């Protein structure tokens, strides 16, 4: 049997139980490989090849920063905690930048709520007009918040007036991804 990085709940050994090779591969080797290769990164890592984003907004409310470049799907496992990490260079022409994530178009990442607008933003920043800054933050997605299976994550920003925001991907490193917390300290 070829090894694979696949997790199976460890065996509860019984007295007299045969130590078959398949069990050693499943419960030891495959589980070790799975832990060693965790956390799997699901999402976006931009190494300067993306296109800069300009959002001129006249509508008050939360809207996608870029539904193509800053959105991804990820497969959620039952009983697993995740971290959602964002690293993005931004600027605005006015007001405050407020960022959060909308999952499947319905669920806000900060508190799992399903309202039309988020209750909480994971990131807020106010600076001078046009001054670039790094939005770097991590949001815990606890087990049970999402059902097992595939989900879509979209980075959202909130506009409180007719403002313009910029997010920089060309020539910039940026990431927006989900990782299991397995093997890591939980937030």
């Amino acid at each position, binding site marked *: 049997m070829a090894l694979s990085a696949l997790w199976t709940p460890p065996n509860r050994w019984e007295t007299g139980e045969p130590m078959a090779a398949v069990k050693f591969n499943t419960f*030891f*080797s495959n589980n070790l490989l799975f*832990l060693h290769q965790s*956390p799997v990164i699901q999402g976006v890592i931009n190494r300067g090849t993306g296109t800069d984003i300009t959002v001129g907004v006249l509508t008050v409310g939360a809207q996608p920063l870029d539904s193509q470049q800053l959105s991804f799907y990820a497969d959620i496992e039952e009983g697993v905690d995740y971290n959602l990490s964002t690293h993005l*260079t931004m600027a605005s022409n006015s007001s405050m930048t407020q960022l959060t994530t909308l999952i499947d178009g319905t669920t806000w990442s900060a508190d799992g709520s399903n309202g039309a607008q988020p209750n909480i933003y994971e990131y807020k920043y106010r600076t001078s007009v046009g001054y*670039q800054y*790094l939005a770097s933050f991590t949001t815990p997605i606890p087990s049970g918040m999402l059902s097992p299976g595939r989900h879509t994550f979209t980075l959202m920003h909130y506009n409180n007036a007719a403002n313009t925001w910029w997010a920089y991907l060309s020539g910039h490193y940026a990431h927006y991804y989900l990782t299991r917390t397995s093997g890591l300290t939980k937030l």
Partner: protein
Amino acid sequence: MTTLWTTPREWLTKDAITKERLNAISDNLTYLHTPSSSIKTVRGTGADAPITSLTPIQIDDALFTASLETTGRVLNVNFLMTMANATAGAYTHIDVLMDGVTYLSSLTGTQLTYGLLRDRQSGAAYVHALSFDIKIPAGTITAGAHVFVPRVWVSGSTSTFYLSAGYFAQFGVRE
């Protein structure tokens, strides 16, 4: 010394269960519990570092060189320092150089134009923290001994990284 990871054994029928083979499992569990890391922390004992270079240069390699043996896992890189540029509007950039040849922003020998972090000074000499925490996906970095150092450059004027009394600074790499 940290116990290093070895590729798990593919067990075959009638394989002998020897102490060496069981200890190999134990060693891997030990590694997963305490993987390789190199965290460099300065608690007010360094000298402030003025940076005027327009191309990547060290902050203080004597303090912030992270050396570790990697095994092909996800690599975590974290950076936290306090700095200020003397001129409003000036940019400061930060990247990480691996083995003297590969920048982590681009994974090539040439850093991205704006590195891993680009910061614009909002007011002259306004002191502020710069930090990031990035992951390099599993399998990206070849397993083996590697050396990581932060590299910084400015668009103009002087960016001072504060390492003297009263300031906390950290640069770390861990699997």
